[in-house]
């Protein structure tokens, strides 16, 4: 007679696996994504004016409230609160591009935050309230993995303006509660959301945290008669790939590098590592002298599960064939831009020319419309500065030598500055010792 081992997961185990290593800010961003998906369903035309997401938190509670359409009971009972995305769910066909995929974002976030949550939803047709006391639910030894919807009403009629979802989490985990009471956390959350905002923000959707609305700035790139951005466009298996790369006013090198978006949601911010090809395959490592570099990769698909992001939407999956497909095009762009801007990199461009090159008025915002125009045709990067073309390619040589030796050379050569010593020494050796064919 065999002995059976009960291999069913305990709910406790499941929750701990689900929420392991989930960053709090990423978890909150996940809930924001769901609200934005609601907005996309509600307003297929992309105009999100008067839609809002309000977030409030302190050491005792977390609240996110939106007026973005609510969650239908049908979806709630069969899909939204399941673990994993049911294959039975029909693909949403209205052409919108959603970020909610793996079916676990909301649950993971809620379990991550605390032990008691209430989800209230109103759509135009129905409404419900779901209350979950996680400790009670876990202790219910029953292998029943269901939640019970309280107060579910179908066939009601609700004005669109009154629809929306409110999620309240209380009985916060100790770690979460501690974080929420830090002033630092508020700032860091705001930065994170602003950084990883989606392009939906520009279309009227407003987000506020503890009463303060967030201000978003979008990405800009130089596009002028003299500077033409690199653009590439392609579609593989329903996934559209658009790549734009070029230059932007130097400013902080923090903002330089590659940005990767999936369905309008930023997942990689200003990357300067091998993830986006720096230091690999003949591309040099990023250096602060390249602070003007901006590259943007947009992946879009009506099937978000095909997109090359990782499950927490915090980065790309670098082994994704789609991302591997995009990398050589990104490499082309990086090499072209570095080569064309060589003289800018070496600081050899006159101030005048640099000012004109990076002038405010040449800055183009990247939004849905400009993106479409820019990627209509694939074209290489081009910067056209006639006075630079005729320059001999130059490079700087920097080195240190003992001051007393420099002084001896200055006297001997009859020059005043260190720079002149270097130049004379270089010229001397070159003339006397180097053979050229000239």
């Amino acid at each position: 007679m065999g002995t059976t081992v009960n291999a069913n997961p305990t709910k406790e185990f499941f929750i701990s696996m689900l929420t392991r290593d989930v960053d709090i800010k990423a978890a909150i961003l996940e809930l924001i994504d769901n609200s934005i998906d609601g907005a996309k369903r509600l307003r297929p035309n992309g105009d999100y004016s008067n839609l809002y997401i309000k977030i409030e938190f302190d050491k005792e509670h977390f609240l996110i409230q939106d007026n973005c359409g609510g969650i239908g009971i049908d979806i709630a009972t069969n899909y939204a609160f399941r673990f994993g995305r049911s294959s039975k769910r029909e693909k949403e066909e209205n052409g919108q591009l959603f970020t909610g995929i793996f079916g676990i974002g909301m649950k993971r976030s809620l379990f991550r935050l605390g032990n008691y949550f209430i989800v209230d939803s109103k759509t135009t047709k129905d409404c419900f309230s779901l209350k979950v006391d996680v400790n009670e639910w876990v202790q219910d030894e029953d292998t029943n993995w269901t939640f019970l919807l309280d107060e579910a009403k179908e066939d009601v009629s609700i004005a669109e303006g009154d629809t929306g979802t409110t999620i309240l989490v209380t009985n916060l985990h100790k770690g979460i509660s501690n974080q929420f009471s830090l002033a630092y956390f508020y700032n860091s959350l705001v930065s994170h959301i602003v950084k990883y905002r989606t392009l939906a923000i520009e279309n009227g959707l407003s987000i506020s945290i503890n009463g303060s609305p967030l201000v978003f700035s979008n990405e800009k790139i130089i596009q002028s008669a003299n500077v033409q951005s690199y653009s590439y466009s392609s579609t593989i298996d329903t996934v559209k790939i658009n790549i734009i790369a070029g230059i932007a006013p130097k400013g902080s090198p923090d903002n330089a590098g590659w940005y990767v978006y999936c369905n309008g949601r930023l997942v990689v911010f200003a990357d300067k590592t091998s993830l986006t090809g720096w230091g690999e395959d003949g591309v040099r490592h990023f250096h602060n002298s390249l602070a003007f570099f901006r590259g943007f990769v947009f992946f879009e698909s009506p099937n978000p599960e095909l997109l090359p992001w990782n499950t927490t939407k915090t980065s790309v999956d670098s082994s994704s064939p789609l991302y591997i497909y995009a990398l050589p095009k990104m490499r082309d762009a990086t090499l072209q831009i570095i080569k064309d801007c060589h003289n800018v990199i070496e600081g050899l461009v006159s101030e005048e020319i640099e000012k004109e090159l990076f002038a405010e008025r040449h800055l183009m915002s990247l939004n849905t419309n400009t993106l479409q125009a820019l990627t209509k045709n694939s074209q290489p990067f081009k910067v056209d500065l006639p006075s630079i073309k005729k320059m001999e390619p130059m490079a700087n040589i920097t080195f240190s030598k003992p001051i007393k030796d420099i002084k001896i050379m200055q006297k001997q050569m009859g020059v005043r500055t260190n720079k002149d010593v270097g130049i004379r020494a270089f010229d001397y050796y070159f003339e006397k010792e180097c053979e050229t064919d000239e």
Partner: protein
Amino acid sequence: MSDSGRAINYSSRPAKGVERKLICELVNKFPKSLNINKYRYIGFGSFYFADFILFHNQLNIDKMISIEHSEQEERYNFNKPYKCIDILFCDAQDALSRYLDFPADAPDFMWLDYDYELNRDIVSDLITASQKLVKGSFLFVSFNGSLKVDLGKRVEYLKEIFGDYIPSIQEKDIDKDTISQIFYQGIDNAIQKNITNRQLVDRISAKSIFFIKYRDGAPMLTIGYYFGDEDTTIEMDEIADLPGVTVSGTPINLKIPCFTKSEIRELNKLLPGSSAEEIKETLSYLELEDIRKYIGLYKYYPNYIDAAHYT
């Protein structure tokens, strides 16, 4: 590339001439390259365009691109031998990534013939080529294969050239005899990785089919690849006798013996069909080894009108 035609007269390097003809023969007879005349040829023509002339005449290729990293456009245009040649005045990276398209149904015959030592830029160009070339294409690369770095600095030197594609090798195993295979291995690593990365969209493979080493002053290496289907097995029968054809990572030494015009005429009268020993009986004043080498290459032997330096 880069006006080196001013220093080196490419028309009269003997081993180069043989190499050119071998490559011509190889792509023409290659079992999978039907219609080589429909290919586009891409190379570094310099002022002499020797490869362009040969391939246009012998293979009837009439889509030709010469890449020249130079500003002396006038001189190159002046020397352009045929109307069907377009010259791109930029470096290889720009030509491949900015100015040339690679449609799926139009394979290329590309020969990146660098006359300088292997460096990071050459490897970068090869990476770009392996990202862009379509099925059916040929890629040849030539470079100076000398090892000029002292013992103790060689692994560092290879790392500088190949980055992560450096073959696993120890300092003591790098010398002038092994360096050819080491260069090959690094290049093959880079090409294979980039070919593998194309699998989402292209079922493509890159197989090396040609590898020679010769001296024209400096030791030169030329490696040739064919880009085929994922599971291409190359039937080498038709080209197995061609010097230089090999799928191993070891180069075949190309040695061009020196003979006078009169001697060549006498040798040819006894070919094909005679062995080196048999020929030696008739032409006893020639070295057996030289005769042997000649037999392997006689069809490709260079003809010069000014042969002063051979008599």
